């Protein structure tokens, strides 16, 4: 049962990544792409990590996965804000 | 299908060749340093591909240690090269 949930989560996560990349390719404007990127980052990655946490065999790895997710969240938030602020000015 | 070690070994050789060619032909200094780093990664890829002995058996640790040493040597050489390039530009007042 647990396997089914984790498989579903992983596939959903990958789907979000694919959509994020397609968004990056096709959307015309920088700010739309910014939106597509952050969406795929936060959700896709989160789902993927949740799916992997279910499969991981010991607690330490699971906590590390969680830490990685938090890091990626802050990274993409800080990055998008900085880039938006930087591109807004130039 | 194609054997993993051979595929990555050949990619390593290709990267080394690209890096070597670009080091000779690129006029700009920082690009030359990038090219040397890419050549280094190519040779390390050849070494790690040699070390890869199949999906389940452990790879050859000696080669991993050599590549680790190579990475540290490459970063110190790049740092010196960048410092020389910065000093060179400061000298001509630009």
């Amino acid at each position, binding site marked *: 049962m647990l396997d089914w949930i984790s498989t579903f989560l992983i596939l959903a996560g990958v789907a979000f990544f694919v959509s994020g990349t397609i968004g990056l390719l096709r959307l015309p404007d920088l700010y739309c792409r910014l939106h597509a990127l952050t969406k795929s980052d936060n959700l896709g990655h989160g789902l993927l990590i949740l799916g992997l946490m279910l499969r991981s065999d010991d607690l330490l790895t699971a906590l590390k996965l969680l830490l990685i997710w938090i890091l990626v969240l802050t990274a993409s938030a800080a990055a998008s804000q900085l880039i938006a602020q930087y591109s807004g000015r130039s | 299908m194609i054997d993993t070690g051979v595929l990555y070994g050949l990619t390593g050789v290709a990267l080394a060749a690209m890096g070597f060619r670009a080091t000779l032909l690129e006029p700009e200094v920082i690009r030359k340093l990038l090219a040397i780093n890419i050549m280094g990664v190519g040779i390390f890829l050849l070494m790690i591909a040699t070390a890869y002995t199949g999906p389940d058996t452990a790879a050859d640790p000696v080669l991993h240690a050599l590549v680790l040493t190579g990475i540290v040597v490459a970063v110190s050489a790049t740092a010196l090269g960048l410092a020389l390039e910065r000093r*060179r530009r400061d000298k001509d007042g630009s």
Partner: protein
Amino acid sequence: MEVDVLVLSVALPLCGALIAVAWPRRCEVVGMLTAFAVSVAAVLTLVQVLVVGALQHEMGGWTPGLGIALRVDILSAVFLVLVGLVVLASSVYATGYFGQPREKAHFWPMWLLLLAALNALVLSSDLFNVYVTLELLGLTAVSLAALSGQRAAIDAALRYLLVGLLGSMVYLAGVALLYLGYGTLDLPAIATQIESEPIAWLALCLMTGGLLLKTALFPLHFWLPPAHANAPAPVSAVLSALVVKAGFYLVMRLWIDLFPALLTPSTGLLLGIPGAAAVLWGSWQAFKAERLKLLAAYSTVAQLGYLFLGLALLFQLAPGPTRDVLFGGIVLMALTHGFAKAGLFLAAGMVQKRSGNDQISNLGGMAQRMPVTTFTIALAGVALIGLPPSGAFLGKWQLLSSALGLGQWLWVIVVATGSMLAAAYVFRVLERAFAGSSQPDAPVAIAREEWPALLLSAIAAVLLGVGSGWLWPLLGNDI
């Protein structure tokens, strides 16, 4: 208790460098003490090798395949002594050369690291370990070459770094191929397994190509003259006399110990033809050079040509007494060039320091003002040309006799023209020095700088020629 002195030749300079970094106020004293201790260790190693024969020290106590082994035989012991003495003399010179404490604090640690790299390279017999020593040698040489801070020196140092990195990367590719083929990194272990197959051939070409790039053999020499001419005097002395020769030492070590199975007489020509071209082109450029240091740098390119030419002849001789004698001649020429070129560069440094620049055109009156320096340049010139009392004479004699023995006239002509051109550029300098100058002022002499240069040139011109009798029989059983 039997202590392997050869480990000290690497450990001492490294410790000296660390102390010099941590204690910059006293770095000059530390530097001098270390240089002296290292030359004593080198002489002791030579004595030990003469008594006991080839020595080996397994680092960490592991067998050479798994661990790394330092090996010293007569060839490397002789190079160790060359390195030790030249660095000691240049260190004495450097104490007078560098003025402000800030310059000293930067010079001495890198100088000792360079010494450690040279010793480690000569002693190492593990292919990857040689790569690491090559990189250490390259980085320290570049940093020292850029020490003067002028634009020309930094440009030359940057080009030297890029060429050095390219050379050691190509060498590393060769090592990777050898490990792919033979599964170990220890030099003697691979030597037993090597037979003529494509992977061995390619590894030979790559490793030799990388080393020739670092040794500045003729087509690949463009980076050497500006780097050596713009470096501070003690640095350019060691660069020309030792650092460039380390590449030659490795090529000799690889071609004789590692790849004898692959060598046919014709492969020797791969080194011989560029060597001959280097002799002619280098001597010609040295003759045309207007600066003394540039002249010395181009003469290095030429002299290396002689050494590679000797190697080409060496591989065409069947193992036997004639080959051993030629091998002794090549080693003797390498040693003589090391001492002579160091003496010449130190003298050129003194000329530059006294009269602001080392233009050959305004060397007028140097004989009156700086008699010892002029005598040093004359002695070094004797060794560079190869006139009788010097070791180079014996070396070139062997070169000519084996070339005649093989009936290859081309080499004889090349060596002859090279020597004549060398005579031309040395006498051109001396002629300018003895010409009168407009304002004959009092002789200027600083003992601390003049004596080391004089001793180096004297060793090259006289000692190695007269006193090299003991060297030849020992070198013979090496190959």
